């Protein structure tokens, strides 16, 4: 398919899927390789949002509203999660003077 063809038929669903996959992969890799807790949280947000994007795209594609409703829920949960996560992080930083997750090993069995 040529670029012109794409523009003619509007942005098809495949583009959204590719974009969401890319975003999710970036987030996942970030979570795995980075050690800074703040970056980790941001990467998790990125993964959540990639899913949101996909939900909205499919919702439009099928002409149904439930995907979009889901997104609201996820946004609320993500916000809550970020709040809890950041506050934990602040406490951890206060106690340990670091945000390096490699040093958070108090749960070692």
């Amino acid at each position, binding site marked *: 398919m040529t670029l012109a063809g794409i523009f003619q038929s509007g942005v098809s669903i495949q583009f959204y899927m590719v974009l969401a996959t890319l975003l999710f992969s970036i987030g*996942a890799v970030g*979570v*795995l390789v980075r*050690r800074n807790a703040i970056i*980790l949280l941001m990467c998790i947000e990125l993964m959540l949002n990639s899913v949101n994007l996909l939900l909205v795209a499919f919702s439009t594609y099928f002409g149904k509203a439930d995907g979009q409703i889901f997104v609201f829920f996820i946004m609320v949960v993500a916000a809550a999660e970020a709040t809890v996560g950041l506050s934990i992080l602040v406490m951890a930083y206060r106690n340990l003077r670091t945000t390096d*997750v*490699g040093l*958070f*090993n*108090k*749960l*070692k*069995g």
Partner: protein
Amino acid sequence: MAIDKLILTILALPLIGALINGTMGKSLPKIVVGSIATGVMFVAFALAVLVFNSNHEATFIHLFKVIHLDDLELNARLQVDGLSTLMLLIVTGVGSLIHLFSMGYMKEDEGYYKFFTYLNLFIFAMLILILGSNYFMLFFGWEGVGICSYLLIGFHYSDKEKGMLNGIAARKAFIMNRIGDLGLLIALFLMLMQFGTLEYNEVGNAILAGDLPSGWMLFGITLCLFIGATGKSAQIPLFTWLPDAMAGPTPVSALIHAATMVTAGIFLVVRSNFLFEHAPQTQEIILYIGLATSLMAAFMAMRQNDIKKVLAYSTVSQLGFIFVSLGMGGYVAAMFHVTTHAFFKALLFLGSGSVIHAMHHEQDIRKMGGLKKYIPITHITFLIGTCAIAGLPFLSGFFSKDEILAHALHHNVVIYVIMAISALLTAIYMFRLYFVVFQGEFRGDDHTKHHLHESPLNMTLPLIILAVLSLIGGLLNVPSLFGGNHWLTHYLGHSTLGLNKVAEVHLGDSQTMMLMGVASVLALGALFFAFVKFVKNNSVPESDEQLTGWAKLSANKLYIDELYNALFVKPIEWISAALHRFVEMLFLNRLIDGFTMVIDLSGQLVRKWQTGIVSSYLFWMVTGIVGLMVYYIVKF
């Protein structure tokens, strides 16, 4: 009064006495307590005489159903016939005399009201035993008398020196009886399986109608019944409790361990005569066990120095004698000897009680001697009892023993000879006892001598009555040689199931004469031997250490107690301790702990995975998700 009311009243009287004394006895004066207990017994005896006079046919009194399930029916039902009436007379008659005696004997005891409560309870249980119309009721009474026996043997449980020992003797009696009871119980199960009923009548009629179970079944039933009888009636191998049971107060020994309870085993066999008649193997066993017991106990009695122990072994021996008779099918002869034995053995025990009373609870005959001066009534009555048990001519023991010996002669001469030896030994040790206690010089300390006294009337009166009965008791079943008509044989045979069918042995006059002659010679010979040894030579039994050989064996009761201890008591204690230490603690507990250890260990293993590092958790999570994705993509 109708017969059923009479019987119910007789049954209720001792129970009422026990209830009154048991609940209020503590606050009542002793004389009232004793009078109530003794009074109910005398009334019961009077009523029993009425029953005896009015009853000629077997009568049944249905009380209530104890257990009634589909095909199982166990009733509380009473049966009055010749056999139970005879036992009723013995139990209430001898029982009331012993109650009367106890009023004097136990006067100083603080447990006075308890004693009479137990005695009355015992009579109640014994009455259930003899009056029940089925083996189930018999078992009720059977164990009931066991309990009372336990309570009374251990009566002085808080005594400083002997308290624990009394308790142990009581426990031994109960446990040995329990072993016998187990046999009886199994006989009951077998009968329920075989006949579907425990009524004497139904079982008996089934057998008499020719509806015989297989030989093995009959053998099993009768053998188990006999095992029960060996427990209660102190036969080999379950006899060692009876001598120990002398730890109880003397009236108890007279009532329970001589006159009534120990004859329960004989009663059981006589009651079940229809079964035993068809089980010759069991009869043989009974015969030989009885013979062995009779001889062995007589041997043991030779060297006992405790006045009550001598009488106890004598009881075991006499019971063995009776079992020999049962083994030969001589049921009436057995009951005859049970009756006369009840008279003279109760007399001897009560006499010994009177002696012990006079001696301030000293029971060692080596410290007695010459008592005839101090306690004349006891002396005369004891002498009569001794002569009766030794079988001096024309006393009660003479006739009853003779009938058993006649059976033996008819059966097998060897058995007759062995029994004659046992009878001879009986005469010897009884005269030894009599001479050592009553003749010669007093050997106790001055203090005791000073206080020697004849017992009060309420103790001597029973002695006198029993002495009279011991003298004339033989008239119950006088052989035809002396113009008698075998009254007891007819009476029992008339209304007791099975007994009329059993062929009685009737020897000719010349044979009877010969038998009686031999018996008289033996008894008189024993009298002479004992007289020479203990009066003429004035010899006193040696102390235990000086004894050697046979005498030592006799004094130590053939070491049977020690043997049982080593064979049964110690191993069971050892097994108990070993089971607890090794199986319970080391094996089972460890096993369960092992399970928890496995869980603990697996926890140890898995916890290594918990590194605590978030990145590694995330890594595993992502790996897992990717793995799952790959799996499903490949699969679909």
